[in-house]
């Protein structure tokens, strides 16, 4: 039998299937999140990749913003717990996790077994989030994935507010009007996000090793800016975007095993 984790975020859906030994059987990501067909699609994809049917999955744990709305799950866990579990599995030795999600930022301090010791999250504000990056990319008329490459070619990063997405958007438009190079604006956007995130990191207190979780971690330009702000090396795993789903799958595996031992 298999255990599955599904992470239904605000902008993407991710899923991971583990076999009975805890090995990753399949993983998938769909770039649309809660309230869309994304969760069903990603779950269909991951089962297809694993070559299994839904009946082969003994336990499904959901996490993320849309964790309460997915049909047929066995239980749900907060994304904080799942990112802590997932990153601890992918990058053992991690003590601080930074997760920039679609609509929030989380900074977690974890123990040696991946247990959550403390955390901070931004409150209802898009500044510094993945949504902020999406908005800025739209203003620059580039794909969000292009921001990283652009920022590496900057020679003088622009100064952009880290207070509010709306203010920052106006600033970026002003920079464009002032003919500031796109590369410098992209680097300024990363710096703006990094400053916002760094203030949260300071609140929870940084303890090495530091790792980044979530899809935004794939933006190496942003990771570099963040390293400069927090003055610390940040580890990024290639499966960083799947960390929440993996954590959920690990919780599912644990529940599945408990259930098996209970039922004999």
């Amino acid at each position: 039998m298999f255990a599955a984790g599904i992470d239904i975020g605000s902008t993407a859906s991710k899923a991971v299937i583990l076999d009975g030994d805890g090995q990753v059987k399949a993983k998938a990501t769909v770039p649309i999140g809660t309230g869309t067909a994304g969760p069903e699609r990603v779950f269909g994809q991951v089962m297809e990749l694993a070559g299994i049917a839904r009946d082969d999955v003994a336990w499904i744990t959901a996490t993320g913003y849309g964790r309460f709305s997915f049909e047929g799950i066995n239980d749900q866990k907060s994304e904080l717990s799942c990112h802590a579990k997932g990153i601890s599995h992918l990058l053992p030795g991690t003590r601080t996790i930074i997760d920039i999600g679609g609509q929030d930022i989380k900074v977690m301090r974890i123990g040696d077994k991946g247990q959550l010791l403390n955390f901070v999250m931004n409150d209802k504000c898009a500044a510094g989030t993945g949504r902020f990056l999406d908005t800025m990319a739209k203003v620059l008329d580039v794909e969000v994935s292009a921001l990283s490459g652009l920022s590496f070619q900057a020679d003088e990063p622009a100064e952009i507010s880290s207070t509010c997405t709306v203010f920052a958007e106006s600033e970026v438009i002003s920079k464009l009007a002032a003919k500031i190079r796109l590369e410098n604006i992209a680097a300024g956007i990363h710096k703006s996000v990094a400053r916002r995130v760094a203030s949260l990191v300071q609140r929870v207190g940084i303890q090495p090793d530091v790792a980044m979780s979530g899809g935004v971690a794939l933006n190496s330009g942003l990771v570099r800016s963040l390293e400069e702000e927090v003055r610390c090396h940040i580890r990024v795993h290639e499966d960083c975007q799947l960390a929440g789903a993996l954590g959920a799958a690990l919780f599912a595996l644990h529940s599945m095993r408990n259930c098996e031992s209970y039922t004999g």
Partner: protein
Amino acid sequence: MADVKSLLAQFEEISKNPQKLVKEYVEAGEKVIACFPIYTPQPLVTAAGMVPMGIWGGQCNPQLAGKYSPIFTCSLLRSCLEFGMTGVYKDVSAVVMPIICDTFRGMNSAWRAGVPDIRSITFIYPQNRKDPGARDFLIEELKAVREALEDISGNTVTNEKLQTAIRLYNRKNAAMRAFCRTANDHLDLVKPADRHHVMKAVTFLKPERAVEMVSELTAALNAEPVHRFAGKKVVLTGITCEPDDILGYFDQCGVAVVGDDLAQESRQYRTDYPSANSGMESLALHWFGVKGCSSAHDDNNTARGDMLAAMAKEAGADCVVLCMMRFCEIEEYDQPSVITQLEKAGLMSFSIDIDQSTSDSGQALTKIQAYAEN
């Protein structure tokens, strides 16, 4: 004696329907004075023969308030202004507004411009509480409040009436503290939202009725067997912890609220009015006895964090939840030092956003759930 469940239901009804109570008071020929948070000298209102009622705004998406109050204004005061401007508070005879933070300074002008039909009685609490002149200054401020209340009620507030009212409020404080202690032995019966409804309802009740009802509830709880709660326990701090959804999340995640430092709840019952030469002096000295409060300056910036740590440990809680009223600068200023002191004491803490202009509290659930899971 009524059972706990029906008594809690009464508090919930009052907590959720203060307008009904205002109507009853007014129909009975009584005048109602709305009291902005926090530390409004309510004994003066009672001594003047009127009914003091707390006002705490409420969940609304302000439309009219934006005329005088920018969006980056304390969420609670903004909704109070909205309710004032839309007639929700139309039956009250006046509002008493203590200027305890910068937002209140602007609110004073905004109220006068936006709600001209409801008289505003304002006064200033001196923040330099160690200055020898602060006591005399505050007594003069309170005299102005007294005069305004006498003018509205047509009654004279004698020292005797005031001292009697002060004793009544100290009894109310004691009753509230006793309820909180007792509730912790019955966390199976008093859920976080129930606890909140009791605390909030009391801000709408006449003090003598509050003492009577809360004492009856405490007695009913004491008659029940003590419950050993096995789940996680937290202490809340901040201005308010509303709406009910948020308190429901604690219950949903198996977390109990075993203490609070909320301005809407225990903070106002923590400090008694001390003995003094006169009632007016007692009201003034009360302010100088306030400790660990974001609205009362303290040279010792660890005082609030230390107080919360002690409160949590005494109640067996391992976490303090900071209920951050959106755009409340005084609470924001306190947050870093509070967190530092809690961490030094080996306690966990996290903040949740309290915003009266939106009903979306999904992030609060995520945080509470994450705490409960670990």
